[in-house]
């Protein structure tokens, strides 16, 4: 089972639906005990960094997330859920991220509209999550902040300069874009994540494709 962590912020339903579409047994989970038994974790998030970080902590699900990463479970953060994997954000310096990726989240470059609310093309360096995507790979972004570029960065997009679009470290992945809202390209990326969860839990990979 893939637990989509439900800490009460925004529309988390679309991540659950898209994972189910690619054959995953995905469920919105708000109970830390239930989430602790999952084979893989998805951390979605919309809105702003501070409220999301605080809601994640107060729900008890931050502990589940840290523990899942410590146990080496496949883990995917999406949008603000991706940003929460870093140490903190310029958006709210009083809030702490999970600190799984070193670095902080910064405001998008000046001279372009905030938020970036559009489809954009991925410039992929290397990635185990983004394998098999078409070239060019168009994905959907909605954000005003993005993590700084580090050695974990696996793809960028061009928006007033290079903007981090994804990162990974072992089985921990994150996307600044919304794979669950990126049509067939996004469903393919989620399918890669589901295959990683199946492989790690020793089950036969899902046969249902995008």
């Amino acid at each position, binding site marked *: 089972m893939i637990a989509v962590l439900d800490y009460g912020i925004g*529309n988390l339903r679309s991540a659950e639906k898209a994972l189910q579409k690619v054959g995953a047994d995905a469920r919105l989970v708000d109970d830390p005990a239930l989430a602790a038994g999952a084979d893989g974790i998805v951390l979605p998030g919309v809105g702003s960094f501070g409220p999301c970080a605080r809601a994640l902590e107060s729900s008890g699900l931050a502990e589940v997330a840290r523990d899942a990463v410590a146990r080496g479970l496949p883990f995917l953060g999406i949008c603000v859920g991706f940003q929460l994997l870093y140490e903190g954000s310029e958006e709210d310096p009083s809030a702490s991220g999970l600190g799984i990726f070193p670095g902080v989240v910064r405001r998008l470059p000046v001279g372009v509209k905030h938020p970036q609310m559009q*489809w954009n093309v991925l410039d992929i360096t290397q990635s185990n999550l983004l394998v098999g995507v078409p070239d060019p790979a168009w994905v959907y972004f909605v954000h005003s902040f993005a993590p700084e570029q580090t050695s974990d960065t696996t793809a960028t997009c061009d928006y007033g300069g290079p903007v981090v679009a994804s990162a990974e470290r072992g089985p921990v992945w994150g996307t600044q874009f919304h794979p669950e809202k990126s049509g067939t390209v996004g469903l393919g990326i989620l399918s890669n994540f589901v295959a990683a969860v199946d492989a790690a839990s020793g089950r036969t990979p899902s046969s249902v494709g995008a």
Partner: protein
Amino acid sequence: MRTVRVIPCLDVDDGRVVKGVRFTDLFDAGDPVELAARYDAQGADELVFLDITASSDNRRTMVDVVARTAEQVFIPFTVGGGVRAVDDGRRLLRAGADKVGVNTAAVDRPGLIADLADEFGSQCVVVAVDARRRLGPEGSPPAWEVFTHGGRTATGLDALVWAERCAALGAGELLVTSMDRDGTRDGFDLELTRQIAGRCQVPLVASGGVGELDHLVEGALEGAADAVLAASIFHLGEFTIAEAKAHLAAAGVAVRPA
């Protein structure tokens, strides 16, 4: 890179897609979920559903349409119409909408925009601005007035001032409809969209009046719109989304290819 989005708009009345001219004279254009899936397959960048009815029964119908759409459409979609409180927005977002549109209730109580943005984030909040040109003395600069209640009620508000206020209150996007052009097929009111885009830093969706593909190009280039919205040309099968995008690309507008 800035890419312009192409957005088909589905006006929904009691669970059916309808389309009118200057906000009246409606005709039936099909099942919303079916149309949404078709536009997704054609390469639409987003979808907008506007619930143009007012009764509470039809509101429940709309939530059902949203939930069924979310089962099979994996591109962003906005749902507007009848959102009067944070709870209305929550219901639509939980059913699967990505953004909620507000118009009348935001004019009545502008604080609603801030409340929605605080609760769900600005990226979820689209303010629909329905505007009609004002006749001023000869030689005076152009001006537009905001209308609510599906275009039936004049508010006295200046559209440019109101748009700026919406952005300041936390709107993540403005959906600007020219009531003078809606359904006329004469093209967008480019001066209206350009003026608002020049004053507001949030993305702007141009709406109202598209009758041919060149109008989409004009909206993106002269109208400074970040997204172009149309209904009839797509619903009536005159053009596919793919044809619209190919036309924009040929004119030098960056789009996600269909």
